[in-house]
């Protein structure tokens, strides 16, 4: 109790002394920014993830080719999970004279567990949302099926041996599924009617999806129970597995937010480090006096540790509150931009904030306090007994490592944390070397030549060279963070917008016969539609790799490798515009004459899965005939680009002997949807795939994510500014002293002001240069390994960032140092 009182009184005294203020401010800000960003991104990504579960119509899905025992579902229900079953198969649908192949889903009553179905009373009509599938005896048909079958709602149609009333047009499903499933238009019946159709016979191809929904804990619990029971061919999936394009977007967004929050932590840490150093320096004199008055080392330690502990506790409480306010403000500013339910606040960010405060205090404030306890009492008689740069490297290293650990703990991503750690250490070293070299160079050049004031100033800079290096390094870190995040944001947005620009193709048309090309282009022209070009396509199956049969190659997961089914093969003379060659070369006309073996270009991810390299020999079975080709290049491409993409591309003419068709994609505005009926009537054998609903979903997500990223970036700007303020403040005392002396010696205010501005601008400029270099390197790593994007080099930042850095530093410096310049020299000198 007495100790507590003493500590409280000490902190009150220290507060008045002014040294504690900046440290307290930085700590509180660090906690609030970390709690704010961490909480915001965690809640946002949870919200987005919850919403993304709509895309599964459930939280988890069990995919299987056979029915599973009823006991599995009972078990799930007993554990509090909701379940539903979807059986899908292909079958003909008959209506009067017409018949059409359809991809049919038989759904149980609970379907969809999450999300809604869009239905309408007319083909291509406006969707009205319902939370259930068709009742027994009802058949819901895709608009194109209605068109193809010449039906309107209320009509009759048959599936297998059962008859149904066509009650609704099916406009949208939450879990529309991948394109493969959409090749045939969709129809939906109730699971209870499945048996009556008699289409499901032993050996017929039916896929089952068992849907589960419940709390994460229940799901995890059930997953633990279920996993040991799963057989080959049964897959337990969450939204990430089911929706590659969406998953990539979400993963990138999450990665970005995580990165931003981690860097926010690092920046706050840097600000605390600067403040703590100043705290230490300002207290050295006090400690010397206290020791002279008989304070023992333990007393000094207690005194300062108690201060830090109280400070830390206050920062956690206050910062936590502010952080939650920040979360609230962030979500408020997003209102209208996003339409997801924000999950309630969570504890983890507060914990992250608290641990950040504790760790930052331990790592950055303890070493100066520890050094304080070792301050020699002799300092009261001789001021220069302490070397201020002593232990700085060690504490910088401890600090960087501590922050790295914190980022690791927070992000759970060791690569990311390690990359940032290495980058900041390298940056720090580089800054130190560069500054030391420049300072010694400047001193050498000006030796004997410069006039008094300038020489004094240079000497002062030289004396502070380690502190200056530290400043450059920390500011460079702040700028680098900002630059990287800014560039990354631009990259992400460009990337997403490329996929989702207004007018990006939203319909695919396949099975176009060569003879239909001319009439189809006529149709497009007549209705003013533009298409993404016609690509030839041959369906084939990969059978052998280097003469080994695919089914014998044990380490290929046939399902994941997409090889156990027919694949679209294409041919082209030119590399498709959004593809990039990763290895090998694209063919030229002369290559093709020279070789007798057929070359083939393979998509990079597939090549990796199948462990293909240049020169691998591939055998294909195309409509019963076999074709042998040699891998001549490996291409990377963007599967989310909504254009026709191919795993395998052959040279023109090499697939001439095989019956092929063409594929195209085109953009159709929502208002012109009824045109599709005309299209399908004019070209009944073509298959239409609508992906506009999927694109609309993507658009919403991208919109939310971009807005969130913009806000987080703004917060990081605040962190970076904090670092620059702390930076300027760190040198305020010694500047105050120096400039008082300079002015006492007759230097004009103008001269001192210019000198100050110049020095700050130089620090900012150097930091900017380093940041431009560092951010390019960091970005390369982050894009390549964390976000899974193609890296881009940004030359322009070398022009912009140093100037920006110089200006920021100069302005901050000016704002703070007006005091230095306008304080009468006597007042400063008298304080000594």
């Amino acid at each position, binding site marked *: 109790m007495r100790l507590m009182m003493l500590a409280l009184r000490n902190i009150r005294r220290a507060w008045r002394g002014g040294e504690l203020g900046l440290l307290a401010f930085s700590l509180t800000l660090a906690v609030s920014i970390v709690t704010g960003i961490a909480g915001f991104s965690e809640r946002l990504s949870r919200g987005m993830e919850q919403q993304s579960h709509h895309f599964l119509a459930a939280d988890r899905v069990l995919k299987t080719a056979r029915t599973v025992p009823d006991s599995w579902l009972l078990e799930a229900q007993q554990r509090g999970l909701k379940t539903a079953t979807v059986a899908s198969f292909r079958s003909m649908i008959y209506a009067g004279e017409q018949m059409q192949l359809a991809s049919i889903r038989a759904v149980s009553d609970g379907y969809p567990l999450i999300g809604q179905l869009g239905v309408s009373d007319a083909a291509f009509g406006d969707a009205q949302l319902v939370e259930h599938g068709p009742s027994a005896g009802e058949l819901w048909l895709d608009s194109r099926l209605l068109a193809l079958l010449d039906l309107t709602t209320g009509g009759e149609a048959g599936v297998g041996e059962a008859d149904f009333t066509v009650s609704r047009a099916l406009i949208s499903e939450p879990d529309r599924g991948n394109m493969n499933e959409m090749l045939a238009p969709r129809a939906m019946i109730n699971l209870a009617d499945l048996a009556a159709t008699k289409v499901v016979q032993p050996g017929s191809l039916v896929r089952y999806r068992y849907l589960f929904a419940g709390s994460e804990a229940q799901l995890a619990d059930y997953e633990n129970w279920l996993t040991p029971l799963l057989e080959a061919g049964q897959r337990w999936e969450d939204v990430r597995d089911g929706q590659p394009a969406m998953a990539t977007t979400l993963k990138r967004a999450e990665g970005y937010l995580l990165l931003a929050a981690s860097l926010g932590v690092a920046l706050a840490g840097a600000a605390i480090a600067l403040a703590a150093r100043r705290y230490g320096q300002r207290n050295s004199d006090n400690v010397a*006096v206290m020791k002279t008055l008989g304070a023992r080392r333990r007393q000094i330690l207690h005194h300062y540790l108690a201060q830090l502990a109280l400070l830390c506790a206050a920062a956690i409480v206050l910062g936590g509150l502010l952080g939650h306010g920040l979360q609230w403000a962030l979500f408020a500013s997003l209102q209208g931009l996003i339409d997801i339910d924000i999950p309630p606040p969570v504890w983890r960010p507060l914990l992250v904030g608290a641990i950040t405060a504790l760790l930052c205090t331990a790592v950055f404030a303890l070493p100066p306090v520890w050094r304080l306890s070792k301050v020699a009492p002799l300092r009261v008689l001789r001021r220069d007994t302490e070397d201020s740069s002593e232990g700085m490297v060690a504490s910088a290293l401890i600090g960087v490592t501590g922050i790295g650990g914190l980022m690791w703990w927070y992000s759970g991503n060791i690569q990311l944390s390690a990359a940032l750690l290495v980058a900041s250490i390298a940056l720090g070293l580089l800054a130190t070397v560069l500054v030391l070299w420049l300072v010694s160079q400047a001193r050498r050049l000006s030796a004997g030549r410069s006039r008094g004031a300038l020489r004094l100033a240079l000497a002062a800079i030289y004396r502070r060279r380690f502190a200056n290096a530290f400043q450059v390094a920390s500011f460079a870190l702040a700028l680098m963070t900002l630059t990287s995040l800014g560039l990354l944001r631009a990259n992400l947005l460009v990337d997403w917008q490329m996929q989702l620009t207004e007018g990006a193709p939203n319909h695919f048309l396949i099975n176009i016969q060569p003879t239909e090309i001319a009439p189809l282009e006529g149709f497009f022209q007549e209705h003013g539609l533009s298409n993404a070009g016609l690509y030839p396509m041959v369906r084939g199956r990969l059978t052998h790799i280097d003469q080994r049969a695919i089914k014998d190659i044990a380490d290929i997961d046939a399902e994941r490798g997409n090889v156990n089914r027919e694949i679209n093969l294409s041919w082209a003379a030119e590399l498709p515009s959004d593809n990039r060659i990763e290895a090998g070369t694209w063919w030229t006309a002369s290559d093709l004459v020279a070789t007798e073996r057929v070359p083939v270009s393979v998509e990079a991810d597939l090549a990796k899965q199948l462990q293909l390299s240049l020169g691998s020999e591939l055998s294909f079975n195309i409509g019963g005939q076999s074709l042998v080709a040699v891998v001549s290049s490996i291409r990377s491409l963007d599967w989310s680009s909504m254009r026709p993409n191919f795993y395998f591309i052959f040279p023109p003419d090499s697939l001439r002997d095989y019956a092929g068709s063409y594929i195209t994609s085109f953009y159709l505005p929502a208002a012109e949807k009824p045109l599709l009926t005309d299209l399908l009537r004019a070209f009944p054998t073509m298959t239409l795939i609508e992906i506009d609903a999927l694109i609309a979903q993507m658009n919403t997500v991208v919109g939310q994510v971009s807005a969130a990223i913009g806000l987080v970036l703004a917060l990081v700007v605040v962190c970076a500014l904090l670092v620059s303020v702390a930076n300027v403040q760190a040198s305020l005392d010694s500047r105050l002293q120096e400039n008082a002396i300079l002015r006492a010696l007759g230097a004009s205010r103008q001269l001192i002001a210019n000198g100050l501005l110049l020095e700050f601008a130089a620090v900012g400029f150097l930091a900017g240069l380093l940041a431009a270099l560092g951010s390019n390197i960091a970005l390369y790593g982050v894009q390549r390994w964390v976000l899974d994007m193609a890296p881009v080099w940004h030359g322009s930042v070398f022009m912009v960032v140093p100037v920006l850095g110089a200006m920021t530093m100069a302005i901050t410096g000016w704002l703070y140092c007006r005091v230095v310049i306008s304080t009468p020299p006597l007042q400063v000198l008298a304080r000594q």
Partner: protein
Amino acid sequence: MIRVQNLCKTVTSGAQELAILRGINLEIKAGESAAIIGVSGAGKSTLLGLLAGLDNATSGDIYLHGQNISLMTEDQRAALRAQHVGFVFQSFQLLPGLTALENVMLPLELSGHASPETAARVFLEKVDLADRGHHYPRQLSGGEQQRVALARAFAVEPDILFADEPTGNLDEQTGQRIIELLFALNSETRTTLVLVTHEMALAQRCGRQFVMHDGVLTEAVSNAESADTGMKQSSPAQSGELPCA
């Protein structure tokens, strides 16, 4: 009270060795007052710092209150200071963040005094600053600051008081006032006083005078005792052996 034997202090700056103190011998009894005078750079502050245990000697022994502080750890010396030593500096050395009263309370708190505030108030009263207790050092004039420092030094009722040019930063009149106060408090508390100064007049008020010259301390013997020599070397340097080898 204070006994110094063969005290040497050598510092190395760069490649050069600089002998600041070269074999100091000194004995000051309880209740005595001693002045150390000498030109700037002679080593007066260095000696004072060593006597108070603020720094380690290169060789030699210092006995303070009967204990050899050369053998003590820094913390033990600090504890000794807390109990027995007071300090007054040329540059006052008040903590800027504490009020005058709190500055006086600080050493009392450090030595575990039962009621630091009451005691501190008593001593502020003695230096005529009872009404300025809540002011911060920057709100006080130099003379006032030094009076607070005096109160702080005497508040713990030390056995020994060290003062390093206590009037060095003050004008003559203010300095005079500080000196009066110093000696008044000194005689009241019967403290052993070691005072470093430039001023002959001030030195004369002390019972004994020592002259520091080039790292060697010599006692100026009062005229009555030894009119013929006038000076008495306190160090054994004259015997020919090198004390600081």
